[in-house]
């Protein structure tokens, strides 16, 4: 079955609003990561966050391992935050990486 589920699938915000992206994963998952993909561009890593809370700039990632979920919070969104956000996990015991289907974010001026 689906091992990594992201919600919402898409999100439209006005500049300055906050965003909360969710990632739920199966019990066989480990080593959670968040990535950002600009439209037509390369994927860049935002966080390697297997557990706990991490911050960078306006971004905060919180992973609660025993509840099998992670969130990505974007505060005071900017138009340059527009793009697609993916979470990904390593499948335990195999080192296979599984990506979620992504959240497409559009921030309007």
């Amino acid at each position: 079955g689906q091992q990594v589920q992201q919600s919402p699938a898409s999100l439209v915000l006005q500049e300055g609003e906050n965003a909360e992206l969710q990632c739920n994963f199966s019990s066989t998952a480990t080593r959670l990561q968040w990535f950002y993909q600009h439209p037509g561009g390369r994927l860049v890593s935002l966080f390697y966050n297997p557990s706990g809370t991490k911050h960078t700039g306006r971004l905060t990632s919180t992973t609660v391992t025993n509840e099998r979920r992670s969130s990505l919070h974007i505060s005071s969104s900017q138009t340059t935050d527009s793009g697609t956000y993916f979470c990904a996990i390593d499948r335990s015991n195999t080192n296979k990486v599984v990506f979620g289907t992504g959240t497409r974010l559009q921030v309007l001026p």
Partner: protein
Amino acid sequence: GGIITQTPKFLIGQEGQKLTLKCQQNFNHDTMYWYRQDSGKGLRLIYYSITENDLQKGDLSEGYDASREKKSSFSLTVTSAQKNEMAVFLCASRTFPGLGPQDTQYFGPGTRLLVL
């Protein structure tokens, strides 16, 4: 810092043709991956290589072969291109999984494939 390069940037092939995509990294990373991304979709793992002498199938390996020629390079072959196929193939590298707090993947710019 390091960089991952993928060649070619664009690849146009004919139905049934064997096509090879190449990836090079200078991070000195142990692990490399090949993913396929269809338009508007997520990434699916085709092949991966945990260390230089390792090669493992991902969830989408049928129709592909891969080769880890040396630590810095990882190639992917489409064994028989399918008519009207269009996708982006992404290569990534990483330190050995779980090695430490900087355990993340670095991605190349992608190879865009179109099969006529």
